[in-house]
């Protein structure tokens, strides 16, 4: 099983990198660009076939290391 983890900054947390990317996209001639937020994407191979056990494990990984929940949210997607 594979876990796909998206880590994003919480609403209200300043994201200067996202802002800089947004400015660059506008500069490249994409006038439709609005707010840009940058995050992280982590792929984890898991030796686990049970989905709920896999989800529990990845949730713990996020809480303990992958995300800093003071500033970040995480979303977990599992693929067989």
């Amino acid at each position, binding site marked *: 099983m594979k876990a796909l983890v998206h880590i994003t900054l919480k609403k209200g947390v*300043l994201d*200067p*990198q996202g802002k800089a990317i947004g400015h660059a996209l506008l500069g490249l001639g994409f006038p439709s660009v609005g707010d840009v937020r940058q995050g992280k994407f982590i792929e984890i191979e898991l030796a686990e076939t049970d989905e709920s056990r896999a989800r529990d494990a990845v949730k713990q990984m996020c809480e303990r290391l992958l995300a800093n929940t003071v500033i970040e949210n995480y979303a977990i997607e599992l693929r067989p």
Partner: protein
Amino acid sequence: MNSAVIVFPASNCDRDAADALAKVTGKPSRMVWHGDASVPDDIDLIVLPGGFSYGDYLRTGAMAAHSPIMKDVVRRAKAGTPVLGICNGFQILCEAGLLPGVLMRNANLKFVCRPVPLVVEETQSMYTRNYAKGEAITVPVAHGEGNYFADEETLDQLEGEGRVAFRYVDNPNGSARNIAGILSENRRILGLMPHPERVCDPLTGGTDGKRLFEALL
């Protein structure tokens, strides 16, 4: 006073900290490798030094906060052993949950490396008791991720409990409420982004950091 400096892979201010401590205490500081299981029993002060531990992978301080030695550092800190975290050390203390909040990327995305004026906000601590309240001192910073962030409630609590130790006069990184350094609830843990160990000798540009180490004696 017996001090220990924890050495992580890519710590780069460990020897500066050890040198400052040795000069003030008259005793060499113990260098403790991050892979060790424990800090020696006779240690009265643990220092987490500046640097770029684990290459700042994932988040600054995130990997170091889970290195083997940190279990014992957390245990000792909770039992009352003073812990001083400078720069990367401050980031590690936050990631380890010994101090609240987090150090984020500098608001202007630039690495800032220069002496900055600070105000000593709080003198009721073993680290800051040799300064005068409101005193202006100059201490260098050198970081790309020193932008202190915590929710409003936590910030109010830090201010209300007199736990903001140092504040920037001219905020170099976007830190909430100009915070440069904070104390733990028991006031025995200090985390700060500026480097007091770099200003303990006129040869390196100043001596405003020396009183912080002298205060620990």
